[in-house]
């Protein structure tokens, strides 16, 4: 059988019976724990505190002996031992990639490093997803995304090169130019955030272009926002583009995607279970929840060598269902509806993490501000908008134009360039609080 006829990137492990998949996970887990113990002082301390040693990991259930790893611990470790903490297992000079994402407090970002091997693995995880969604070497893949310090879509670009696709970057183009090129070149696959996939569709309409008739797009791969698994949004994208829309999700902490939607579109993405253990736990008790119940994703990753990630509390809300929900033959379970939301107050705006505390830290650097409020809304059912409403101290109105500009810039700088709207309110317009201020209003529909 020619390789291109396979529906699986890796038929051997993607279709492994569950008991063998568990055995494979255990073999990898034992090696991972051993490496974390010997090479990462951060992990060694965590395990010593919990009284666990690598030889205690004898069955997959022993995973639960390991303590959780949290983003807060990670950030604190970075702050104590700048720039990367002693979480990393190798000298910085061994890294070939550096990426970052916005932090939980103030301006300190979460920083990640990858070796040549890590980066190659990151690329390979995207290959599972792209191949599984039917993308092949003859495809022309267009990335409607501007790469930068944020890790989003970088691995996907390299994945398409590895697959042998014609791979097109478009960081320098306007939306109109992108639409034009997609049609002119006969692009067959478009990658974007769901929001932007819709925006390009709307722009095409204004330009008098019917993407279904004039274009050749047969797949739209989305990432970066939960909307990629919302049926209504998928349908809008598919109606506009005339091709199937497939969801993927990843995170900077992992470096790549851990779930992808297969060509059968079973209503949610499969977990790449030969590279990740995805536990779903009650966020309050830390106890596992059964199939079909919402809980918090807790991930263990076998791929990134620089940064061991074990039992990492993602704070993503998910609902795991058995792999048999899909008829494709993969034995990786499915997150029905993709990533459903966040356990805590972190907000995902157009693919960027926004923490109210981080926004507050920036706003409070401007002494002219008396009170403020963060409002998140979903415009036209699709695009998330974040607005910081500001009340000035009395008598400072003349400073507003300059402050408005500066605040917008500072907020964007602290959030990978995310655009914030900054609006002036009248004196006394915003609510005041004595205890437990609720300065964030998330007016988006909850799913």
């Amino acid at each position, binding site marked *: 059988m020619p390789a291109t006829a396979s529906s699986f990137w890796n038929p051997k492990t993607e279709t492994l019976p569950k008991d063998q998949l568990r055995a*494979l996970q255990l073999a990898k887990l034992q*090696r991972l724990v051993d490496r974390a113990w010997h090479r990462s002082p951060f992990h060694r301390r965590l395990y010593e505190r919990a009284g666990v040693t690598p030889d205690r990991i004898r069955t997959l259930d022993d995973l639960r002996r390991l303590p959780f790893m949290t983003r807060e611990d990670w950030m604190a470790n970075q702050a104590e031992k700048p720039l990367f903490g002693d979480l990393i297992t190798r000298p910085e000079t061994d890294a070939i990639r550096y990426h970052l994402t916005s932090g939980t407090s103030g301006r300190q970002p979460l920083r990640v490093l990858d070796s040549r091997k890590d980066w*190659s*693995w990151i690329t*390979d995880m995207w290959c599972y997803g792209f191949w599984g969604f039917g993308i092949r070497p003859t495809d022309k893949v267009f990335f409607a995304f501007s790469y930068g310090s944020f890790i989003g879509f970088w691995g996907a670009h390299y994945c398409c090169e590895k697959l042998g696709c014609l791979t097109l970057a478009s960081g320098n183009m306007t939306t109109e130019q992108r639409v034009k090129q997609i049609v002119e070149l006969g692009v067959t696959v478009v990658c974007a955030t769901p929001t932007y996939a819709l925006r390009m569709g709307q722009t095409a309409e204004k330009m008098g272009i019917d993407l279904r008739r004039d274009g050749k797009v047969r797949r739209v791969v989305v990432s970066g926002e939960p909307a990629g698994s919302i049926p209504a949004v998928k349908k809008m994208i598919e109606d506009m583009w005339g091709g199937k829309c497939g969801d993927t999700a990843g995170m900077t902490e992992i470096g790549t995607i851990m779930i992808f939607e297969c060509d059968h579109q079973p209503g949610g993405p499969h977990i790449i279970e*030969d590279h990740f253990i995805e536990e779903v736990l009650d966020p309050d008790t830390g106890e596992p929840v059964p199939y079909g119940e919402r809980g918090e994703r807790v991930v263990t990753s076998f791929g990134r060598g620089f940064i061991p990630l074990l039992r990492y509390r993602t704070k993503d809300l998910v609902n795991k269902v058995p792999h048999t929900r899909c008829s494709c033959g993969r034995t990786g379970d499915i997150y029905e509806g993709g990533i459903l939301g966040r356990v805590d107050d972190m907000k995902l705006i157009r693919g960027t993490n926004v923490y109210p505390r981080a926004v507050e830290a920036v706003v409070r650097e401007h002494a002219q501000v008396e009170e403020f409020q963060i409002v998140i809304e979903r415009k036209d059912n699709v695009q998330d908008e974040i607005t910081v409403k500001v009340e000035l101290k009395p008598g400072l109105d003349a400073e507003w134009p300059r402050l408005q500009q500066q605040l917008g810039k500072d907020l964007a700088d602290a959030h990978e360039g995310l655009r914030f709207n900054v609006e002036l309110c009248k004196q006394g317009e915003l609510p005041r609080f004595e205890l437990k201020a609720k300065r964030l209003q998330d007016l988006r529909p909850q799913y």
Partner: protein
Amino acid sequence: MANDAKDLLGNRLTADERELVDLYGRLKALCQRTDLPPVATANVKQAMVLLWNACNDLALLHEEPGCD
């Protein structure tokens, strides 16, 4: 490579799998050399990590290859 080598699941390696592991091992050894010109070292490292992916994904091994 020995004919009785096994993958992470305890299965004996196929002839193709043995060849992949063998190639990976040879490239890994070349990566450790310090006497090769940059053109050889850098390209061998690139090739090695790609072979690592094939072997790792196929559950033939699971290790850190240890180059940059």
